[in-house]
């Protein structure tokens, strides 16, 4: 049935767009006049009223948008509060150990050691707040220097701190110099 197809099209459009879409644009997309389109939307809105639906179509000033029903709020709060399982995989551990013992270090330097692109583990470690950006290296492209966070050190206890290279500002400068030299060699090697 043709009307069913049009309903499907409108649902697909509103879903993809996410935001409110004006009636005239919707009408154009489904090849119908605005009056018909409005009627079809109205009809859809009634269907969405069914209690088995968690989403609804709302009208905002002649534009239409798909969104969740207000009654679903608690459920959404609930799912976003279910803690995700975070684990330090071998890949993350390996990357973390390199950063801990070689900091400050750039992404390229990490990749040179690991032999593989490492954006993914680096991003994960940043998300986990185990590493952070220490600044930028004074080298072409101003690459970001990574190091471990205070949080990371705290979790390992102060006693163990001496096992890691301390990052005092002077040392950081030294490291930067070193890192720059290494970066030069890196480019030469490529």
């Amino acid at each position, binding site marked *: 049935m043709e009307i069913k197809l049009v309903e499907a099209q409108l649902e*697909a459009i509103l*879903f*993809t767009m*996410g935001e409110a879409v004006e009636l005239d644009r919707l009408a154009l997309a489904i090849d119908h006049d605005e009056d018909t389109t409005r009627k079809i939307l109205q009809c859809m809105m009634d269907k969405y009223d069914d209690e088995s639906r968690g989403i609804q179509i709302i009208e905002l000033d002649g534009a239409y948008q798909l*969104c969740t029903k207000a009654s679903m*709020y608690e459920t*959404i*709060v609930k799912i*976003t*509060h279910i*803690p995700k399982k*975070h*684990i*330090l995989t071998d890949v993350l*551990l*390996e990357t*973390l*150990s*390199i950063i*801990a*013992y070689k900091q400050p270090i750039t992404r390229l330097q990490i990749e040179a*050691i*690991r032999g593989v692109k490492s954006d993914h583990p680096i991003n994960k470690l940043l*998300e*986990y*707040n*185990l590493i952070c950006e220490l600044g930028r290296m004074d080298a072409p492209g101003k690459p970001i220097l990574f190091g471990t*966070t205070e*949080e*990371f050190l*705290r*979790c*390992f206890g102060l006693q*163990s701190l001496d*096992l*890691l290279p301390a990052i005092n500002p002077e040392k950081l400068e030294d490291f930067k110099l070193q890192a720059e030299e290494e970066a030069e060699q890196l480019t030469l090697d490529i």
Partner: protein
Amino acid sequence: MSIPVKLEAFEGPLDLLLHLIDKNKINIYDIPIVEITEQYLDYIKQMEEKNMEIMSEFLVMAATLINIKSRMLLPAPATEEEEEIDPRQELVDRLLEYKMYKYVSDQLRDKQEDASRVMFKSPTIPKEIADFKEDIDVSELIGDLTLSKLHEIFTSIVKRQSDKIDPIRSKFGKIEQEEFDLSDIFTQIQEYGIEHKIFYFRNLLEKQSTKMEIIVTFLGILELIKLGRIKIEQEQLFDDIRITYLASDIITMEEAGF
């Protein structure tokens, strides 16, 4: 014979080989090695690209083809009951496997085409909900990981890295243009000869020498013997070679007629 297809169009040595097999409408299991080898070498000759890394992969395949060719030319060693193993078998297996992956990658391409018609929606979690997303508990994440464990992991990475460096091959370095010009070395040996009269081959290689340098120097020595400008002696096998410079002047390779 002109070859219209650019070599760069091939993804690798197997790809080129498959192309030739396709082009000649022959079955993978029955590759006429001689013809294919010749065509293959023709392609490689067209290779203008100076990228030695890529080039070397094609050359390895060429060597494999020539190896198979020579094994097929040689009479098979008499074996009792065992069936004769076609020297092409290994190549056939590799080609078949490669061909199969090319075939499934076409199927995957279609799948991707279909799947790309499906649209997703980005998350629309209300800001106030997203905001009270709890922080990740670092200490829980770290769990029973200790610094010494972390150190252990780091050490093993460092160790792995040094293991990776092949002590012999790492000295080969990259494939580069020959740095040692025979005519330069030719002159240098004579200069050394005039100064020292009697010396050892080892003396010529006092600095850390590369394999290539040794070979070129040795070639220089051979040329000079041929010209009668030096005399060499070796007491025993593997003894150092004693060289006596007989001439009293220096000639260039051009003058020597090379």
